[in-house]
């Protein structure tokens, strides 16, 4: 049986941290932090896991699905400060990019906000030393019984779904995934692995999205029009993930349309990350993989590094700037500079949290109050364009159809929405679906199949007797089951005896049949012989010189009844292997002999 419990993401978007016990093994899936909190609540409650033992003793491994902080943000805290020395698994790109993001996160919290009791740079490095990188579709043996395997998940570079397998029980954890390809990544894919449990994210449990093309086209059209008018376009983005997609989108569009207006990308973090995007071409989509021989798509021709002096340059330009919600930093500075001109445009490619400038302008506010009682009038155009890389309801269903799990567990979503999806899944796939809350443990009982080794000789012998093996029907087999050292073997009886050093015992059934026959014994025997010979044409019936009859290995002897000479007693004796024939013979003889013809 399994138990899966959400230490972090139950019915909640944010901290992802799931604990799975499968056939006695404990695996932690993701180790995320919550972006919304700045106190203890931002990290998952690890004391919940062991109560008060050592984590390393309790957990067999930790798996990180991708580099977003809500999936890996608590990792250094968990491994260095709480203390975990076991293996941590993630894909190569995740391993490469994850420390950059962690370091950035640390800088903001410690250096800018001045928090103490937070993990240090060294801790991030130490933590990364414990990471084992895996390839797609590579089966990694964690220990003798536990194995994991990564599948492509789309979402961001290096995002993976993991299959965790112990014996014949298995769990698939999807992490975040995307079933529709985008400009730089492909779609998630899994084979028909039929896991006992599929743990799926459900961010968009109740949404079916429009085709990506319309959004892309609108985006490009808006940018193009503004640039042609001579306006400037500001695109506030978070440094990794969507930013790369939008870059590729604009880069190819510029290339196709032969446009000349400059595109800038605010420097820092992104440059380092872009470097990794260039390296991990195999993780990108078909187009980039196919064309990288001529040109690596991430070696942008039209996109250049941004310098803050460029913001005042005349003429059209497009600038990608961080952060994405216009709440601070470069993007806000540029926004302030450009807001006054109606030729300019700002495009918000994602959701904005309440209270940020981004949220205000999206909700239609035209006059913003800045620090120092300054009023900023927004004349530039404000556009909203959603580019999100999670699977929608249809995508989730599609993944379930591909993997054919026996149970589904939904995490990483809002309870109300998950309820709807749960109902749909149960209705359409007829599988159980669970949606545990934080800290809640779900136990799922499986019906494990137990593999038994069979010796080839026995198998061949047994199949030779019966018909060809048929998938639909179970087949009967005779053999001896030996259970030894946690393994099961089916062998022939002879071999079993030999192995166990036992002598063979014979079991014989004997049966007496009374027949009314006044004749002499040997005549009776002859009559029985003739009768049997007539009925059992396919068997070898023999009359032995000592006055007994054998039918195959069954022995029949006749003696006169001690009291009544007219009654003959037939002694029928057979071994248990011939039970079928023996009992048939007895019933045949019990019916009596046919009237003599002679």
């Amino acid at each position: 049986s399994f138990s899966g419990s959400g230490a972090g993401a139950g019915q909640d978007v944010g901290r992802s941290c799931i604990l799975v016990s499968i056939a006695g093994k404990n695996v932690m899936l993701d180790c995320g932090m919550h972006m919304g909190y700045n106190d203890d609540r931002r990290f998952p409650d690890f004391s919940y896991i062991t109560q008060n033992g050592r984590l390393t003793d309790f957990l067999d491994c930790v798996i990180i699905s991708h580099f977003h902080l809500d999936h890996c943000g608590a990792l250094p805290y968990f491994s260095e400060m709480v203390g975990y020395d076991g293996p941590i698994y993630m894909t190569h790109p995740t391993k490469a990019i994850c420390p950059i993001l962690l370091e950035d996160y640390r800088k903001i919290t410690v250096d800018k906000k001045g928090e103490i009791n937070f993990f240090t740079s060294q801790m991030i490095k130490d933590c990364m030393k414990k990471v084992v990188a895996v390839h797609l579709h590579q089966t990694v043996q964690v220990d003798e019984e536990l194995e994991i395997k990564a599948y492509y998940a789309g979402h961001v570079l290096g995002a993976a779904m993991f299959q965790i397998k112990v014996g014949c029980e298995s769990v698939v954890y999807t992490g975040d995934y995307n079933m529709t390809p985008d400009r730089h990544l492909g779609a998630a894919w899994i084979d028909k692995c039929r896991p006992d449990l599929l743990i799926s994210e459900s961010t968009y449990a109740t949404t079916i999205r429009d085709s990506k093309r319309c959004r892309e086209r609108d985006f490009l059209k808006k940018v193009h029009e503004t640039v042609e008018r001579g306006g400037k376009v500001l695109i506030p983005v978070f440094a990794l993930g969507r930013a790369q997609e939008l870059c590729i989108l604009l880069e190819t569009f510029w290339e196709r349309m032969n446009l000349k207006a400059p595109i800038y990308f605010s420097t820092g973090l992104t440059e380092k990350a872009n470097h990794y995007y260039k390296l991990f071409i195999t993780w990108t989509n078909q187009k980039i993989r196919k064309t990288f021989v001529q040109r690596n798509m991430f070696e942008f021709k039209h996109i250049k590094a941004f310098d803050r002096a460029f913001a005042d340059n005349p003429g059209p330009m497009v600038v990608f700037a961080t952060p994405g919600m216009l709440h601070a930093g470069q993007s806000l500075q540029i926004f302030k500079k450009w807001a006054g001109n109606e030729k300019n445009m700002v495009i918000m490619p994602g959701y904005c949290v309440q209270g940020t400038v981004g949220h205000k302008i999206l909700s239609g506010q035209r006059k913003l109050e800045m620090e120092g009682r300054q009023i900023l009038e927004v004349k530039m155009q404000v556009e909203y364009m959603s580019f999100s890389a999670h699977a929608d309801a249809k995508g989730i269903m599609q993944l379930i159809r591909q993997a054919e799990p026996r149970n589904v567990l939904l995490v990483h979503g809002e309870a109300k929405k998950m309820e709807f999806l749960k109902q749909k899944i149960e209705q359409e796939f007829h599988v159980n679906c669970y949606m545990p809350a934080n800290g809640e443990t779900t136990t799922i009982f499986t019906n494990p199949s137990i593999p038994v080794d069979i010796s080839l000789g026995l198998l061949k012998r047994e199949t030779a007797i019966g018909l060809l093996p048929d998938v639909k029907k179970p087949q009967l087999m005779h053999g001896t089951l030996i259970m030894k050292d946690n393994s099961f073997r089916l062998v022939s009886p002879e071999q079993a005896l030999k192995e166990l050093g036992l002598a063979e015992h014979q079991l014989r059934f004997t049966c007496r049949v009374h027949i009314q026959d006044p004749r002499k014994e040997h005549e009776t025997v002859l009559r029985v012989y003739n009768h049997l010979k007539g009925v059992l044409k396919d068997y070898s019936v023999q009359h032995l010189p000592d006055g007994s009859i054998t039918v195959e290995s069954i022995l029949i002897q006749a003696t006169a009844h001690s009291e009544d000479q007219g009654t003959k007693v037939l002694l029928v004796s057979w071994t248990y292997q011939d039970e079928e024939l023996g009992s048939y013979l007895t019933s045949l003889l019990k019916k009596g002999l046919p009237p003599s013809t002679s």
Partner: protein
Amino acid sequence: MAAHLKKRVYEEFTKVVQQQHEDLSTKKLRLTKPSKSAALHVDLCKATSPADALQYLLQFARKPVEVESVEGVVRILLEHYYKENDASVRLKIASLLGLLSKTAGFSPDCIMDDAINTLQNEKSHQVLAQLLDTLLVIGTKLTENSSVRMRLVEVACKHLTDSSHGVRNKCLQLIGCLGPVEKGVAKEVESQAAKDVQKIIGDHFNDQDPRVRTAAIKAMLQLHERGLKLQQAIYSQACKLLADDYEQVRSAAVQLIWVLSQLYPESIVPIPSSNEEIRLVDDAFGKICHMVSDGSWVVRVQAAKLLGSMQQVSSHFLEQTLDKKLMSDLRRKRTAHERAKELYSSGEFSSGRKWGDDAPKEEIDTGAVNLIESGACGAFVHGLEDEMYEVRIAAVEALCMLAQSSPSFAEKCLDFLVDMFNDEIEEVRLQSIHTMRKISNNITLREDQLDTVLAVLEDSSRDIREALHELLCCTNVSTKEGIHLALVELLKNLTKYPTDRESIWKCLKFLGSRHPTLVLPLVPELLSTHPFFDTPEPDMDDPAYIAVLVLIFNAAKSCPTMPALFSDHTFRHYAYLRDSLSHLVPPLRLPGRKLVSSPVSPSIMPHEDASQQFLHQSLERVYNLQHLDPQGVQELLEFTIRDLQRLGELQSELAGMADFTATYLQCQLLLIKALQEKLWNVAAPLYLKQNALASAAAKQILEETYKMEFMYSGVESRQVVIIHHMRLQAKALQLIVTARTTRGVEPLFGMCEKFLQEVDSFQRCFISELPHMQGSFVDKLLDLMPRLVTSKPSEVVKILQTTLRQSTFLHLPLPEELHKATANIIEPTGESDNPLRFTSGLVVALDVDATLEHVQDPQGTVKVQVLYPDGQAQIIHPKAADFRNPGPGRHRLITQVYLSHTAWTEPCQIEVRLLLAYNSNRSKASAKIPKSTWSESLEALPQSENGIEGTIPFSKPVKVYIMPKPARR
């Protein structure tokens, strides 16, 4: 491939064995024996180890075996087969048997019994599979013999229970290829195989091995291809296979379902878990749609492709494929397409300013939302968004086919096609533009759609832009704003890419003529005329201005009120353009002007008839004079040829026809000139001059006949006969000339024989046409054939000479339509004075852009020739991908030619031209021969006629100035 690899493995393997050197030398001695079989026998007997024997067999397999000795070889192989213990050698022998039975002309029925016998005692599964493969080869060679087929099928059925997948695989393949297709035959032959083959194959749909399941489905499809009507009962079985774990099985199952849906479109099938029933084709459509979101892209491509050919599907099912039923937080959401449409109909154009203007509105009933079982729902939406471009292309193609058959669907899929114009892969964009063009009759573009379409005009790829121009040529636009928008975008395109000039003008020509009423209100604005003021006269050489005029003049053709809006200079410009760009500017009836072309425009048809009549009359005249004095004939021919050539220039529709006949008459004229009696009678010393004239004539006739045969599309067999006949005459002339000039009889023997062979093959190829050739050269020749065969060369020559002279002139019937292949090199233009400089020894790439008309199979025949000033010629075969096909009968070659040369002291010109390669093997004559005669006479056919290859230059040469500089040290 696998076989090839195996061979490689064996080759390396046997290197060790070859050390026995003496063996090799003795073997060589034996090999000189005429009989191959004997050599093989000895080799095999000598083989000491299996590896040795294998080596001999491999060597043996490399050489072809003559038909006569095949049977002997087979016997020897079989003999060794029985003796051999090693499975790999038996395997090789089995495969050799298959190879040998493929030998042309060998009838394998004599070895069939033996092959079947070998099966009985064979234990190795691999060898069994190979033997069955051999039987399959034998069976396919003897398809007419139904009893053989029955027997083989029976054998296959017996081995179907084998435990190896390979054997079962082959058995199913065999049953699929040879199983009885007609019910009647099956009943006659009383045997196991008389059981329904479909049932036998169907039983293996559930085999435990996926490879066998695939083979079973493939066998079923094979039966279908061979004409057996599959039973409907298979349908439910096939549907189950769609959920198979293996992609090959699913892929094959999709095909099977498609086949069944085409066979029984109207049958009714129940929907599981409900009482409803639907048509089978709809059900199958839904199932295949479902496969468009399969896990394997191979299956997805397969499914998407097949969707296109399911035209009987009901329209509401079809339209579901484009509907994904968007929702957001359980509320129904409209797609961007719907929003665009609504904005358009409400008269307001995309505001898009507000965040959440796509906010969902109505609540949805949670129970009513089907997330996955909805079958066809959104299949194309998924297909068009797929990760693999192969799937997207397949989906676009399918959309195209479905839209062509259903106008309402065409209207609906428009939005999606327009979206595909922005795909990241160029091939997909191009494909969707072509698709749109194909369905353009059924659709009218909305303004917002047109906007998106036009945005692609800025694409940097020339192919995309040209495809888009083609599309615009046949698009219907709904509003005058649309036309204006199109014009503005096209002009923008023109300034950005000036090389697109021709294509844009052409596009505007059609745009104008299709929408005269929409252009009319735009005219004052476009010509910038003003009611009161005179505006400056625009520059006549400005391509943009010409573009506008082309649009307006073409619209004016069917809109008589338009010329009233023109200003004076417009009329002048009209006259100029009508003259300089006559293919773009139509003749107009202009008030108060000299009616430039009024006699032409109203009566195009009768005029055409007149010229056609003229053509026929002049031909008639020529054919009627059979026996004029040679002088008169020559003159008449000369005049007629001149007339015809002029006619071809004047009347482009008849150009092909006129040129064709002119060429023929030219040949005839040459022949007559060469045969003039006077010249042949002069004394020996003067032969030389005569010789030169006649042999030159013969050569030219030969060339012309090849041109006639290969340069014209639409030539029928009737013409081919005449052409070949003319060629035969030319060859006879050649023979006569040679006979006259060479001394000694020796060389003549060979020539005569060759000629007679040609006559023979001519007779064979055109036996059906001979009755039409009364009194011709060949007719007479065939009468004399018995005499010719026996007589001496000198006599043959004499006979030929007289027959040539006496034979009548054959009437050349004209086909319905005849087009001459032409090519025009657009680039390089040959005008540049700046030499192309490059370092000698290195290469320089020269862009060649040419249009080809009426060329069949340009990929195979069109070559580029480069002539260097030193006489060196280079022929380049362009890649197949360099040819584009913008329209029927038209091709475009855009390629790069690599030039290189040693250093020159000063720049010089090279010539670039296009050649049409031909091969008389591919001649239409040989294609004419019915199949049965082919197989009989294939080997016996004399080789002389086969395989004459040559090239015909068919474009004007273009000169390019180049300068290879010496390399700097």
